[in-house]
């Protein structure tokens, strides 16, 4: 369960303080998926970072899995992230000096998963993403689509309760993008994971349970999968 209330975040720049997320409130039940839409600069990535604990809000509250993320710091925050959150970045961002299998295993090692169990989970995921033969390849040997699939496997290896994906398909062709999104939402539903995806891609909205559109840091529009419209400005 994710619940954010009146969250704001502004960055200092030569133009002064620029509000990037401005009084956003939303909630998402456990196991559900949400697509965050909006133009570049609308605040999608920042909101995702705030929800994922990678950034700290200037004001407001963020609760993830009943934990007050807005007040967690240091090792407590890191401990929460390593156990409960998986992040999928725009360009995969694999660790360049680790092989495919080592990248996928990394969050499992952080969580001190025993070796046998770890190896089984890595094998299971590599087969699911169709890259078992590339287990010992380095990221530089993979295509863009393969990198994103490995990044997805890494993000979900430790079975986090929350998966946050920041424009994961922006560098992919439409077929690869659809396949990745389908895999992400399908595995998410199977494993009961709450999934948030920041995206430009309208095709993603068809796969998510809910869509929220951001404009200038505020919620402009929200739609459920059953096409129920919600008011602009606040979403609950």
């Amino acid at each position, binding site marked *: 369960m994710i619940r954010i209330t009146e969250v704001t975040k502004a960055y200092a720049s030569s133009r002064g303080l620029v509000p990037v997320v401005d009084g956003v409130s939303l909630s998402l039940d456990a196991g559900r998926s949400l697509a965050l839409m909006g133009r570049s600069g609308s605040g999608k990535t*920042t909101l995702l970072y705030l929800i994922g604990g990678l*950034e700290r809000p200037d004001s407001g509250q963020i609760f993830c899995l009943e934990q007050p993320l807005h007040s967690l710091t240091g090792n407590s925050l890191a401990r929460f992230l390593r156990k409960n959150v998986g*992040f999928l*970045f725009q360009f995969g*961002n694999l*660790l*360049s000096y680790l092989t495919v299998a080592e990248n996928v295993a990394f969050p499992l090692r952080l969580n001190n998963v025993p070796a046998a169990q770890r190896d089984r989970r890595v094998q299971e995921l590599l087969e699911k993403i169709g890259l078992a033969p590339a287990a010992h390849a380095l990221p530089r040997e993979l295509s863009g689509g393969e990198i994103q699939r490995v990044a997805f496997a890494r993000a979900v290896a430790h079975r986090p309760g929350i998966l946050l994906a920041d424009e994961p398909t922006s560098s992919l062709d439409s077929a690869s993008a659809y396949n990745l999104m389908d895999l992400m939402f399908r595995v998410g539903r199977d494993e009961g994971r709450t999934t948030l995806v920041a995206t430009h891609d309208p095709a993603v909205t068809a796969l998510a349970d809910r869509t929220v559109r951001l404009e200038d840091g505020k919620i402009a529009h929200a739609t459920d999968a059953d096409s129920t419209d919600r008011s602009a400005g606040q979403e609950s």
Partner: protein
Amino acid sequence: MNFRLWWGVAWRFLWRSRKSTGTLAAMIVSAVATLIFLDALSIGVSDAMIRNSVSLVSGHVMAEHIPAGVAQETLRIAGVEHVLKRRTSQVWLRHGGQMAATALVSVDPQAERNATALWRKTSAGRYLQAGQNELFLGESVARKLGVNIGDTVLVGTTPTQTDRELVLCGTFRTGIAPLDQGLSFCPDLQSGANEDWDAALFLAGGVSAESVRDNLRLPASAAVTTWAERMPDLKQLIDLNGLCMLLVMILVFFIVSLGIACAFVIFILKNIREHGIMKSMGVFSGETVLLLVLEISGLTLAASAVGMALGCALTWLVAGPGVDLGALTSHNQYFAVSGIIHPRLTILSLALPPLLALLFALLAGIWPMCMIARQRPAEVLRSI
């Protein structure tokens, strides 16, 4: 904190980023190898000064007023290569109305030839032969007395007394005034068998004179001194040499470390995004610091090991033939016998350069470590 995990990540990073690792390592290898060789050379210079100074006459350790009942072999303890038995008396030498005061040292000529280098400093005539009533005198004293090779010199304990007559067989010139003007030599004819005697001990390479002095078991009446106690000027020169070398090492590493620091900062910041990714996965700040410390120290220690091997090899290659600095030392009293330097390694000369390399490398890593550890993941990810 899972040390094994982070060690595995660190060495994989170093091994799979071979180009940048190799470039950085090359800087450290060359710095360490150079400093090890330079330090070995500096030690070789000190060794040569000591060797040149003690090998003429005095030996590394001198024992005086040894009772007659003490056998010569008593002094041949571990580390002692030669024990030269001598008897010294203050005498007046007279010839043709001229006189000079000197210390007359009765020696075993063959043993002296084997252990000392004074016989190589013969300027006229020849060195002593056993069983002869001969005198080997400093050239300047012979000139003062007006005595030539083959002339007889009167020897007495007072200016007017004659105890014996010795024939001048040769003169020597070392360039060291106290030696040239203060000592003369004659074969020991065993006439003073019941008298106290002196010993000059010559030690094997690397043996501490102080430890030999401390381990000698002699009656309390015997006075034992080391070369450092008898030649404080030489001791100070050697200490100064050592201090200068240490300063050179620190300065060189400080300057080299500026380059290493820049390279390390680039090395770490090049991968800052990956540290941001790791932080987003819940890596603790302490683990980030541990990873960087392992990367820096792993790289530095591995490169230092190669540098040590290279430094040792270079030292070993040069140590055999030595470096001939005769052209620069021919007028220097501390190189009276030979100007050849043989570099020598010690535990400290091997250990200090790598330790300095590690210290400066870790210091260089402090700023990027703090920067990455303190920033939130989003800040690190945005910093590229």
